[in-house]
């Protein structure tokens, strides 16, 4: 077996040092009834060639997003990732290191985390950010729990524009904690509806911009109302590239901003691993979940970085911790940070403008499709449309023309009563030809 260095002679020699007669003697604490005598009913070891052949065959049965015109978004976006990113994250020292618990020999990872935190704080317009969470949806749930700790109130209001998976994830966690979750019905452009249920018991209001229907909203007024009621505003963003063009959550008055960082530096990966961004006002720092990296000095006064404020965390505080999270999404955060370093302010802005421009072209093309109604009034790079038939059927029909037309809203929320709504995203990877192909496929499908 190519991954196991010990030879039979090594094993015999080592058993002699241990003074054990055989390997079974080392497993003697296992109850006899539970010791498997035989191998389990699974295939035997396989060479690299065979394994690669099997995995390639499985991969070949999927249609890669890049195989043709492709318009899925809804929380995961296909962007171009520079070759440099994937090269660097495969360096041994980043790929095969552990959490930087020994800072003297982990300054590479730690400095990256410090840079990452600074980048995330800048993007979101807030003062402090953590070293990342699992993904945007779990970051959203953690933000709601944090609001409960900060305000000592038990009610959270989720806007109808929040991604249904984010809402469900938050409901699952918050329900366990005994919080009351008011989840407003799915609505394309009704973020202000959260104000109707806002009261003095409310811990937080959660709004997403651009929301799951692609609608970008200035939430300043919602922030003011939330603060007047003593509640926090949590702003969710699932398309991180939008930070390059739209007002930041901090600028609009958010207390906590969470986002899915996949769009920058990370592949689609069929849904994971991704990277959750989490930022907040500095005064809320002590209630933040997750790992934090901070600047300090070493014994000779040189600048260095360490994991810090760990008295919030589970390995110190155990049942009194702010969260049970014990990891971040380190390598995905690294990919995010490298891509953002390559982009810089100018590159991110241009990338965001490109995305928005492609979506404007998309909207123009969609408006010309008979029977189709564009629902999204103000967008970044994603548009919701209403079709005369269930969107899932139309998507299947467009597949016959080689076009993946988008995400039916019913896929995210079957009970939402919006089966005719289709979410269509365009990014810098979308070409004018792709958009034309989509318009043709939709026209043909709706004409049938």
């Amino acid at each position, binding site marked *: 077996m190519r991954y196991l260095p010990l030879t039979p002679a090594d094993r015999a020699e*080592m058993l002699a040092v241990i003074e054990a007669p055989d390997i079974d003697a080392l497993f003697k604490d296992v109850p006899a009834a539970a010791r498997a005598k035989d*191998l389990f009913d699974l295939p*035997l070891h396989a060479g690299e060639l065979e394994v690669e052949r099997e995995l390639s065959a499985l991969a070949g049965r999927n249609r890669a997003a890049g195989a043709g015109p492709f318009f899925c978004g809804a929380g995961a976006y296909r962007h171009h990732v520079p070759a440099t990113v994937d090269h660097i994250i495969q360096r041994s020292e980043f790929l095969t290191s552990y959490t930087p618990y020994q800072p003297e020999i982990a300054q590479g*990872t730690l400095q990256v985390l410090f840079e990452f935190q600074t980048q995330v704080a800048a993007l979101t317009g807030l003062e402090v950010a953590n070293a990342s969470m*699992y993904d945007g949806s779990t970051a959203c749930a953690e933000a709601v729990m944090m609001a409960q700790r900060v305000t000592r109130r038990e009610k959270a209001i989720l806007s109808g524009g929040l991604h249904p998976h984010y809402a469900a994830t938050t409901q699952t966690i918050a329900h366990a904690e005994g919080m009351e979750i008011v989840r407003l019905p799915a609505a394309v452009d009704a973020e202000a509806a959260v104000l109707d249920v806002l009261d003095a018991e409310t811990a937080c209001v959660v709004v997403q911009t651009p929301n799951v229907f692609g609608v970008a909203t200035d939430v300043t007024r919602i922030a003011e109302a939330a603060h007047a009621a003593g509640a926090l505003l949590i702003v969710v963003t699932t398309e991180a590239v939008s930070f390059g063009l739209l007002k930041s959550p901090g600028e609009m008055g958010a207390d906590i901003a969470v986002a899915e960082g996949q769009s920058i530096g990370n592949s689609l990966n069929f*849904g*994971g691993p991704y990277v959750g961004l989490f930022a907040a006002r500095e005064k809320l720092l002590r209630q933040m979940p997750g790992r934090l990296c901070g600047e300090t000095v070493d014994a000779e006064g040189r600048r260095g970085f360490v994991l810090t404020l760990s008295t919030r965390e589970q390995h110190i505080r155990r049942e009194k911790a702010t969260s049970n999270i014990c990891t971040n999404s380190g390598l995905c955060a690294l990919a995010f940070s490298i891509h953002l370093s390559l982009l810089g302010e100018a590159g991110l802005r241009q990338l965001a403008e490109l995305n928005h421009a492609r979506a404007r072209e998309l909207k123009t093309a969609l408006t010309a499709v008979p029977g189709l109604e564009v629902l999204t009034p103000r967008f970044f790079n994603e548009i919701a449309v209403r079709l005369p038939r269930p969107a899932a059927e139309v998507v299947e029909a467009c597949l016959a023309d080689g076009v993946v037309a988008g995400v039916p809203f019913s896929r995210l929320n079957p009970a939402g009563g919006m089966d005719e709504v289709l979410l269509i995203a365009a990014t810098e990877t979308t070409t004018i030809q792709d958009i034309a192909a989509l318009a043709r496929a939709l026209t043909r499908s709706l004409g049938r």
Partner: protein
Amino acid sequence: MSMQTVGRPTRPEAVAADASAASLSGGHGLQQDEPLIFELGGWEKTGVDLPAPDADASDLGDLARTTPIGLPGLSEPETVRHYVRLSQKNHAIDLALYPLGSCTMKHNPRLNEKVARLAGFADLHPLQPVSTTQGALELMDRLAHWLKTLTGLPAVALPPKAGAHGELCGLLAIRAAHEAAGHGHRRQVLVPSSAHGTNPATAAFVGYSVTEIAQTADGRVDLADLAAKLGPEVAAIMVTNPNTCGLFERDIIEIARLTHQAGAYFYCDGANFNAIVGRVRPGDLGVDAMHINLHKTFSTPHGGGGPGAGPVVMSQALAPFAPAPWVTHGPDGLSLTEEAVGEAVQAFGRMCAFHGQMGMFVRAYAYMRSHGADGLRQVAEDAVLNANYVKARLSGEMSAAFPDGPCMHEALFDDAWLEGTGVTTLDFAKAMIDEGFHPMTMYFPLVVHGAMLIEPTETESKAELDRFCEALLQLARAAKAGEAERFKAAPRLAPLRRLDETLAARKPRLTWRPDAPTVAPTPLAAE
């Protein structure tokens, strides 16, 4: 062609010993100092070439950002150099043995990286039509089959994104099962004092109270204490097996029996499954739910702290409560059940957006297929053999916390042997850095004084284990010989000396700020 050597010396000349002093510029040879990107980059500089947008953003009106973000950019060569220089300040499993107990730092096969990057996996959107993702669903289904077969449990929830997330998933399923049976009043979790911190934190996160179970003198769960605390309020016990002392819970079957008799569920923390994979099925021990850290047992890379993956295997009793989504077999091939409706109405909810850590599933499956049933059994055997070898070799100078009987995949020492030397566990760990090794896990588990938990894993050769043991034995002898200064000053050969963690926590500086006083190069000037 050979190099022209005539006229230049080809042997080192004799020099005075003190000629090896510091460099003139402050450099350290190949070890480069590296500023932050905020001190290096330019506000107008970029490392990407993008086309000009073919439409403007004037339609956004007041939604558009009007203030700068504050992100520096670097050209591609500067970017590569920045991160390569930073990388060289990290220890890594590819460099040397990395004996962090409980963390399982083993070799990460590169084939797994290659296949995870196939376009059919990496460039696949979670919400594209399921008819276009049949290969991905098939892979998830095969992974699930392997996990179920290896654990002897009938169901698995794939979505959890890490071990702690798996614990949360398991406890939420247990809670849902109790509520469905009208036992919602059961809100207490029993956890051994040696448990990972995530166990009590997770229990508290789902609204349960935590009660500690005592440990016996030989490092196991105290059965009498467990029996006394298993009351009608107990929802579950959370026990790690092999436990965090690196020992197999000999009475595990009795622990399960007592737990079930009391109407509670047995949650097993599967962090140490790598010690028994292929030899013992947790289902045969009476476990109801267990998370599997794919990044430990099945070697997906740790990546400097994630991403991990923590699928949870479950018993028949808990399976109906598992969270969405899951793969189902139908007449048109495989599909995904994504909502808690219909047959799935008892599912407790959703752990995260989409379907879990697919990138990790591909790597873990490739690892399993490469090893096969035979190789995985050998993994457990070699992991246990290596740990016992280290324990035997070091026991001459260091005191094993539980000297009697074998350990499993990790060897635990206490600090009794350091008494009177003036050297602490921390000092000893830092001195290991100067010898070229990453320290072991220190001060965990909490039940052993000055704990040093060493997990070599099965991917270390005997030669590397010997090199490691020799270094530690030399250090141990030095400590006992009164060389405390060597330890207090350690590490001396790392990129940095010991860091001031108190300062970091007292005055947290978590982001770079242009106005912050700094010992580093001058901040980037606005262009």
